[in-house]
C-alpha cells in the first residue's frame, strides 16, 4: 500500500522528532502529521482534511490517553478502517492484549536501538 500521509499521536517531543527523522530516512515522501494527545488527534481528524492512511498511537498521554482515543476511532464509522499502530514504551502483555481486543492492528514497542527502530518501522509500512 502506498502511504502519502500518516498521523502520529504522541505527547513526547523527543519521540515525535525521532519518529519523523527515522521516517524521513526511509520514506522521505510520506507526510507525517502530529497530534500531542488523543483529543487533539480527534479534533484534527474531524477538521476538513485528507484522512491519514495509518495512525501511530501512543498509549500514555495527557488529556486523552491512547486507549480512549482508540475506542473513539474504532467506534466511528469514518475512522474505523484506518489501521492503528500502537507505538508505546510498554511491552506489558496486558496492554498489548487490550489494544488488540479494542481493534488496534499492530503493537509496536519503541525499541531503544536505533537500527531496530528503523527496521521495525520499515516493516510496518511494508505490511500496512
Amino acid at each position, binding site marked *: 500500500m502506498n502511504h502519502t500521509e500518516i498521523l502520529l499521536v504522541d505527547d513526547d517531543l523527543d519521540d515525535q522528532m*525521532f519518529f519523523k527523522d527515522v521516517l524521513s530516512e526511509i520514506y522521505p515522501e510520506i507526510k507525517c502529521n502530529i497530534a500531542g494527545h488523543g483529543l487533539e488527534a480527534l479534533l484534527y481528524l474531524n477538521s476538513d482534511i485528507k484522512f491519514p492512511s495509518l495512525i501511530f498511537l501512543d498509549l500514555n498521554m495527557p488529556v486523552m490517553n491512547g486507549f480512549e482515543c482508540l475506542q473513539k476511532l474504532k467506534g466511528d464509522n469514518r475512522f474505523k478502517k484506518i489501521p492503528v499502530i500502537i507505538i508505546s514504551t510498554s511491552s506489558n502483555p496486558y496492554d498489548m492484549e487490550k489494544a488488540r481486543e479494542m481493534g488496534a492492528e499492530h503493537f509496536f514497542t519503541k525499541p*531503544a*536501538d*536505533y*537500527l531496530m527502530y528503523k527496521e521495525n518501522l520499515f516493516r510496518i509500512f511494508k505490511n500496512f
Partner: protein
Amino acid sequence: MDHAQHDDLRKENQSLNRQLQEYKELVDAIKNGSIDALAINKNGEPEIFALESTDYVYRVLVENFAESALNVTDTGLIVYANSAFDRLLNAANATLVGANIESFLDSKSKKAFKEMFRASFSGTSKGELVLSYNGKKIPVYVSMSSLYPRFPGIGIIITDLTEKKEQEIFTSSLEHKISERTAFIQQVIDSSVEAISTFDKDLNYTSINKTALQDLALSANDIIGKNVLEIFPHLKETAQYQSMQRALGGETVFHNNIISQSNGTVYEAYFKPLIVNEEITGVLLMARDITTVVHAKRRLEEMNRELEVKNTELMHTNTELASFSYIASHDLQEPLRKIQAFTGRILDKQSDEFTKTTKDYFTRIIAAAAAMQNLIDALHAYSRTSVLKPEFILTDLNQIMEDVKRSMQEMITSSEAVIDCPTLPTIRVIPLQMHQVFSNLINNAIKFRKPKERPYIKITAELISEENIKEEVALPKRKYWKISVTDNGIGFEKIYGEKIFELFQKLHGKDAYSGTGIGLSICKKIIQNHKGLINVNSEPGMGTTFNIYLPART
C-alpha cells in the same frame, strides 16, 4: 449324880439349846432367802457355802446382768459374784468368790475404795475406780449399798467403763483432729490470694479471711456479725449488692470488674450461695485482686494497637515501595531509551566523521546504556511480581517447560545444552511467573556452564511430605512438589547459598558472566508468591541444584 456333874450337864444343855436356837434361826434365814451363803472359819481360812434360795428369779436376773454384781462381807470378802464379774476380770468364778475385793483393785484406787466402802456402811456410795487383774487395768463405775440389817455386808454393782473411756479418748482425739483440721483449713483460707468472706441470710458477716481483711484494712472483730451495709453503706445501690441477693436466691454470680472505691484496686469476684443440707444458709464471696492483670492486659492492648498501626504503616510503605519501584523502573526507561536511540542514530549516521577515540567512547556509552537497560528491565520484572495479582491456574508444567525451551531455543542451540526433563506435574500456579522461574533457572544453568563442556540440565519432580524439607519452615502436614533443576556448571561456594537470592547479588566478575543479579531474586519472590520455598545446593566445579518446593493440593 453329884451336884457338880449336874451343874455341868445343865450348862451344856443350856449351851446346846443356845446353839440349837442359832441354827434354827439360820435355817429360818436360809428358808426365807435372806442368806445366800455361809462363811465358816476353818483353821483360820474362810470356807464359803453358797445356798440355793427361794429368790431364784432374782438370782437369774442378777446372773444375766450386763453389770457385775457382788455381795461382800463387811471385811470385803466376796461371798457372791455374778457371771458378768467373771467376764469383766476374765477369771473363773471359783477364784473370785472367797477372795477379798481389795485384791482386785489397782493400787491407785485402793484409798478411794476404802473411803467408798466405809461410806457405804451408812447407806450408799458411788464413784469411779480402776480394777487390776492379771496386769489388766479396767476402769469401772462402782456403786455400793449397805445390805444391813438383813445381811452383814455390802452389795456392789460394777459398771465396766472400758468402752466409755475408749470412747472418751476417741472423742477427744477426734476433737483434736477436728481442731487441727479446722486450723489447717483456716490457714489455707487465710493464705489464699483470694479475699474470702461469708455472710448469713441477712448478709451479716460470718467469717472473713486474712486476705480480705488486709484488703479492707479492718480487723475481724470489726466485721464479724455486722451487716455488709453497715461496713460498706455505699454498696446498697450497686450491682454487687444485687448479686449477693441473687446468690441468696441460689444463683452463682460472677463480676469481672469491680473497682474498689477506696484505692482503685480491680477485683473479679464470685458470689455463691452457701448450701448446707440442701438449704441456702448464706453467701460466699470470693474476690481476687486482678489489678496487675488488668493493667498488663491494658498495656498489651495498647501495644497491640501500636503494632497494628505500625503494621498498617508497613503495609502502606510496602505498597508504596512496590509501586515506586514499578513506576521508577518504568519511567527510568524513557530517558534511557532516548539516550540509546539518539546515540545509536548518531553512531549510524556520523561515525565516519568520528575520530577513533570518539567512536570508541560512543560505543562505550551505548554499551553502558544497554547495561542499564537490562537492570531496569529486570527491576521492572521484579517489581511486577508483587504489583500484579495474577490468578492461580491449574497448569501443566510440561507445557510451561516446552514454552520456555522454545523461547530460549537460540541459547540452547548455540550452547548445545541438553535438557533432561521427565514428566512434570499439573498444579495450580501463576503460569507467567512459573515461566519466568524456569526460564531464569535454565538461563543460569547455561550461562554458568564450564568452558568447553556441554551443559547438561536435569530436571526432576517428586511429591514429598513437609517433614522432608529440612532447611526452611514449611507449612505443617502438607505435601509438596519438589522440583529440582541440576546442572553440571561451575557451581559456587556453599556460603553463597542464601546470598544469591538477594537483590543485585552477583558472584562473578562482570567480564566473565553477564547478568543483573536480579534473576534469582525474582525466582525467590515468585516461589514465595506460590507459598513455596526455594533453596540451592552447590559446590565449586561440581554443578548446582536449585530445589523448588510448591505446595500440592491436599
